[in-house]
């Protein structure tokens, strides 16, 4: 138990789940897009939808997308800041089956045309879970350095990733593989004990069949 999850975080209120958790979902989503955001469609589900206005959940999600952390005092002005930066944001209701009560679906469009669809859940006490990336089920929190590799579902890609980590002397805390279908799109989520250097990430990008590599470091942008 990290005592700074008991006393802390320093955060903009009013709710650790509906505000701070929402900022984290937005922040991780923005980082996973990996390029400047131009348009975001945000759909809310359950308690996020029902009580989100009073908790500033929409502002919090957008603040996170803009790169703000949970203690950023600009969170209440996030919608105006997004507008100033020319980012188009729209909100709707998520149509999701059996989803966690605090769920947000974000469909993000980047400057070069990258598109990312992400489903994030706020689990309480500002802890979150990324439950889906581009329609593929996942399960990670972004609490440790996380490498996300999109690849074709073919033999060999796991060993490319583990070779790189081994060469960089990085210990794997957890590694999970997900795919849409056999031989289809696959996502590898690797949570690490140490930071992954840019050179290792670039090395992976060079492989045939690895479509995209994104990385969530702990040191910010």
């Amino acid at each position, binding site marked *: 138990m990290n*005592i700074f999850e008991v006393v802390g*975080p*320093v955060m903009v*209120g*009013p*709710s650790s789940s509906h505000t701070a958790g929402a900022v984290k979902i937005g922040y991780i989503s923005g980082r996973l897009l990996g390029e400047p955001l131009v348009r975001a469609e945000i759909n809310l589900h359950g*308690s996020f939808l029902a*009580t989100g206005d*009073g908790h500033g959940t929409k502002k919090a999600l957008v603040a996170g997308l803009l790169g703000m952390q949970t203690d950023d005092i600009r969170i209440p002005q996030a919608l105006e800041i997004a507008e100033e930066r020319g980012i188009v944001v729209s909100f709707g209701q998520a149509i999701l089956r059996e989803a966690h009560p605090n769920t947000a679906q974000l469909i993000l469009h980047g400057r070069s045309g990258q598109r990312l669809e992400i489903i994030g859940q706020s689990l309480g006490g500002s802890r979150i879970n990324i439950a889906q990336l581009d329609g593929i089920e996942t399960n990670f929190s972004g609490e440790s350095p996380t490498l996300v590799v999109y690849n074709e579902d073919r033999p060999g890609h796991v060993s490319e990733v583990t070779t790189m980590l081994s060469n960089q002397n990085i210990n794997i805390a957890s590694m999970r593989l997900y795919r849409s279908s056999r031989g289809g799109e696959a996502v590898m989520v690797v949570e690490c004990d140490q930071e992954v250097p840019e050179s290792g990430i670039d090395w992976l990008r060079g492989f045939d069949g690895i479509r995209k590599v994104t990385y969530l470091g702990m040191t910010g942008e």
Partner: protein
Amino acid sequence: MYHSIADIIRQSEEKSCPFWQIVLQADMEERGVSYETSFATMRHMYQAMKDADAGYDPTIHSASGMAGGAGEKLHVYNAKGANLCGGLVGQVMEKAIKMGESNACMHRIVAAPTAGSCGVIPAVFLVVEERLSLPEEKMVEAMFVSAGIGAVIAENASLAGASGGCQAEIGSASAMAAGGLAYLQGGSAEQIADAAAFALKNMLGLACDPVGGLVEVPCIKRNVAGAVNALTSAQLAMAGITSAIPVDEVIDAMRRIGNEMPSAIKETSLGGLATSPTAVRLTEK
């Protein structure tokens, strides 16, 4: 590492070091950080509480319109000398309600242990720091005492209204503040434990039934109850009164009560105050 308040007290005796240091040492081990880093992080939390208190805006109102202005009313009332509870209790009440309002109005606060209960610990600590002219180091040490109590509650019961009701939020905050206050008054590890036990016992069974699902009604004013309860609980312990039920068993009782509570009063807003006729009317607006 510790898994109960009794663990902390035992280790404190074995190593001949104070309660707060056991909590700090466990943090060093848990996160792989130095003594200085752990202490500095806690100092940062305490400073952030002070900043949040100083940043109260008497003109703010929440998006729902239900929160705002109460801290200023209490300030004016206290300034007139009208508060029958006296200066110290009056100030604690004022700081607690102000912090709760700041949280509801999207200001920056420190979740301790949650955002909804963020007013309890700073209200008690900031007022007592000034009254007893305590050095900041001592305040940070007391924060470790509070954090240790909270960590034990998190492990053996819960800090979330959704799983344990409000006893897990305001109740835990009150127990954390009471233990910290006993330490600030020179209390022993046993007195810290008793203070926390008294505070938590008074909060057992408290429902989490927020109007409209918002952290406003009754949460903001309950910060006052939690803070004042911490003050009186610490005084009982410092007078040498002991808790008939040891604090770890009180925490376990809190867990069992939380499990037995219907979900309607565990942050779903499907029961209690949240479904009162006035709440329904306020929510429709």
